């Protein structure tokens, strides 16, 4: 396995070995062993299950929205109910799916493994973060039962203060509580990356997934407390009648928008940076090439985290803020597009003359590249002052941020699911169904959201369920696309669950990938590695052969000492 010519293609042969006798999934059984676990891998699984649940709830609300919009009249529900449906879609998807998605599942699972650690620095805070997430989720679900919330996911005052007659306080408290799970996750990541790296793992040898999470964590710990206080003040305003955002009592509703977007613009990067980290891993692996411009991709993550804090005013161009402030925010918004573009160009350069293969994760990565680029470029229309006045609060912006959030973050999430599923479960899923649903997702997504660009450009405002008859064709197209999208979300659930029992055994490294997480068994043992790994080279060295070797079968804490795991 040592010095042989780099294979242009991997041999896609079936793995001959067996799953390890003991691994993190079977060291203990029972509900208690899961609910009280401090193993980062098990906590990641807890997150995976709850996040999937919230994604389903958010998706259900999306389906109701698209059903209502099939006809120009509001015939399915009243305006009041429609307000609640799109609000809950937004709240659930943003705060309970997109923000935790990749960090809480794949960051939790793989960041410690990628840095060669046994766990995150604070395992119990990690578990606490899941409980906090769950409690926040319960509050929000309780709000649905208590009559829903009708403010839009942004909780803008005075919709959320003076003019709301729904369960705003309950939802706000849920989101407030949930913020702390994000803070704890970010804090854990930063400390772990600083203090827990394996011997030889210098900063410039870190996988880009880790760099991306480092940058996202900075935003989590600096931004989240600001939205926490803003939402806390909303809850206090509703419950106790203080008037910080209420002009009738001397307060200022625009102040809320400033506090909210100070977090919620950077929050976009909490959602997208981890996804970009996944892209770097997947694209390098399936191009069989060292990633192009490693230092630029790493630095651009940090640049996004920093500059991302200085652009919030682009959400408030029509709020009456000073024109000069708007100009500054507009320029800075253009600026923050630069590091994102740096990444995209570096990925393209990685693909260039690579030995590309089209496994499922790679298909999602291609989807990401296309959709994120469209989302990013349409963002320029919205960051430009004059065009934003026309497009503000129209379906154009709905389409724009869905291209970023679904086209970017969700594509990245699904790429991660398919890339690391063999490592997490030890089993391969059906490649055929994987590719099929990736293709369906791409088609369904574009059919859903591209018409919305046109609708927005023609002037259809967001958050209304009545519209002129001539827009029906595009709306029906969008709904049809959403149905395809829904199916493309459901198929993976089926074949992934099926693979748990019937999937072929993956082996430690089915993709022949670099990275410490692939040097241990699949599923990994309880403490990740038999012995603490030592890193001697830069990441993404795909110039040499990497094989799916059997690593210490039966690996586990109790297994007899075995010879060092063969690594190629």
């Amino acid at each position: 396995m040592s010095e042989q010519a780099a294979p242009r293609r991997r041999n896609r042969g079936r793995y001959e070995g067996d799953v390890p006798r003991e691994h993190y999934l079977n060291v203990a059984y029972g509900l208690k062993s899961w609910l009280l676990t401090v193993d980062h891998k098990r906590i990641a699984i807890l997150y995976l299950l709850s996040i999937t649940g919230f994604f389903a709830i958010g998706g259900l609300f999306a389906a109701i929205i698209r059903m209502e919009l099939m006809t120009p009249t509001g015939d399915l529900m009243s305006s009041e109910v429609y307000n609640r449906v799109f609000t809950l879609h937004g709240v659930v998807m943003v705060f309970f799916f997109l923000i935790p998605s990749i960090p809480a599942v794949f960051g939790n699972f793989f960041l410690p493994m990628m840095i060669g650690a046994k766990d995150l620095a604070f395992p119990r805070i990690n578990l606490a973060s899941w409980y906090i997430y769950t409690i926040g989720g319960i509050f929000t679900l309780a709000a649905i039962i208590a009559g829903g919330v009708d403010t839009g996911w942004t909780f803008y005052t005075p919709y959320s203060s003076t003019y709301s007659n729904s369960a705003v306080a309950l939802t706000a408290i849920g989101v407030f509580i949930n913020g702390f799970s994000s803070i704890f996750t970010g804090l854990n990541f930063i400390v772990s990356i600083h203090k827990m790296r394996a011997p030889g793992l210098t900063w410039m040898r870190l996988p880009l997934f880790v760099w991306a999470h480092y940058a996202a964590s900075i935003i989590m710990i600096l931004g989240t407390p600001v939205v926490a206080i803003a939402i806390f003040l909303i809850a206090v305003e509703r419950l106790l009648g203080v008037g910080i955002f209420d002009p009738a009592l001397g307060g200022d509703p625009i102040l809320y928008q400033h506090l909210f977007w100070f977090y919620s613009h950077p929050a976009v990067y909490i959602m997208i940076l981890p996804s970009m980290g996944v892209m770097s891993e997947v694209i390098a692996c399936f191009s069989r090439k060292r990633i192009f411009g490693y230092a630029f991709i790493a630095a651009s993550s940090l640049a996004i985290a920093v500059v991302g804090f200085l652009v919030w005013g682009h959400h408030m161009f029509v709020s009456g803020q000073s024109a000069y402030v708007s100009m500054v925010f507009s320029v800075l918004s253009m600026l923050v597009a630069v590091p994102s573009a740096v990444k995209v160009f570096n990925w393209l350069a990685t693909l260039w003359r690579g030995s590309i293969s089209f496994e499922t994760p790679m298909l999602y990565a291609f989807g990401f590249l296309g959709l994120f680029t469209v989302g990013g470029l349409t963002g320029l229309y919205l960051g430009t002052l004059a065009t934003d006045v026309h497009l503000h609060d129209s379906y154009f912006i709905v389409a724009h941020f869905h291209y970023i959030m679904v086209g970017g973050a969700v594509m990245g999430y699904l790429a991660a699911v398919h890339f690391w599923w063999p490592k997490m479960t030890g089993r391969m899923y059906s490649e055929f169904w994987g590719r099929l649903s990736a293709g369906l997702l791409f088609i369904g997504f574009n059919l859903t959201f591209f018409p919305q660009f046109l609708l927005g450009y023609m002037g259809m405002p967001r958050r209304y369920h009545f519209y002129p008859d001539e827009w029906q064709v595009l709306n029906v197209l969008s709904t049809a696309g959403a149905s395809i999208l829904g199916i493309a979300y459901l198929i993976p659930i089926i074949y992934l669950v099926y693979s748990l029992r019937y999937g072929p055994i993956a082996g430690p490294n089915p993709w022949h990938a670099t990275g410490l997480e692939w040097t241990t068994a699949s599923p990994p043992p309880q403490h990740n590695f038999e012995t603490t790994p030592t890193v001697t080279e830069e990441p993404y060295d795909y110039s040499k052969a990497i094989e799916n070797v059997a690593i210490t079968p039966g690996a586990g804490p109790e297994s007899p000492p075995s010879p060092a795991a063969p690594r190629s």
Partner: protein
Amino acid sequence: MSQRHGPVTAAVITGSMPEMDNDHGPLQHHFDDMAQQNESAALGMWLFLLTEVMFFGGVLTAYAVCRYLFHDAFAEGASHLDVQMGTINTIILIFSSLTMALAVRAAQMSKTKLLVGLLIATMVFGGAFLVIKGIEYEHKWVEHHVPGKYFQYDGPMANQVHLFFSFYFTMTGIHALHMILGIGWMIWLTIRSWRGDFSAAYFSPIEMTGLYWHFVDIVWIFLFPLLYLFGAGAGAGH
């Protein structure tokens, strides 16, 4: 390296503040040595305090904007605060910081009884602060200065004075909540100190709690002049 066995206590999920220690022997299984563990705890605590700075920073920014806009009304509102009680509370908190700092020193020198005594002193000072704060709140209630339904104020700037009191109660309320959480945490630490968990070899939880406590004190050092002293020169003696 010790491996962790046995059930994890329910204290795990309280999560009111970062928990950097371990009930099952000082060194946790995933760290190589105590130095790494202590450095991680310290970095974690500083990052947590950074989030706290941003948390208070949000409401302080809002306060700064409104105070700039409604300067006269805020000065008038501030003149209704009891500077005397505020000053006494400031002194009490500074003393509690002193006893907390001495408690860390006592832990470093493995003086268990002194450590317990100083922790209790810190909690007593903290408790005294909260009692005085409660008395102040009660006065405001009697005077109908608590924002909301029962707020009463005569004069052309009533709305803005209401806003001032909204900020006053929100900011001091959040601060008091932080003190309550800190004291609750310290009760647990006192029990552990009494058990003899801490010594020169292992005192990182005491040190981290000290950092937190000093931070909460510093927040007050900002709140006191911003809220109380602002109006002291403008028509005091209402």
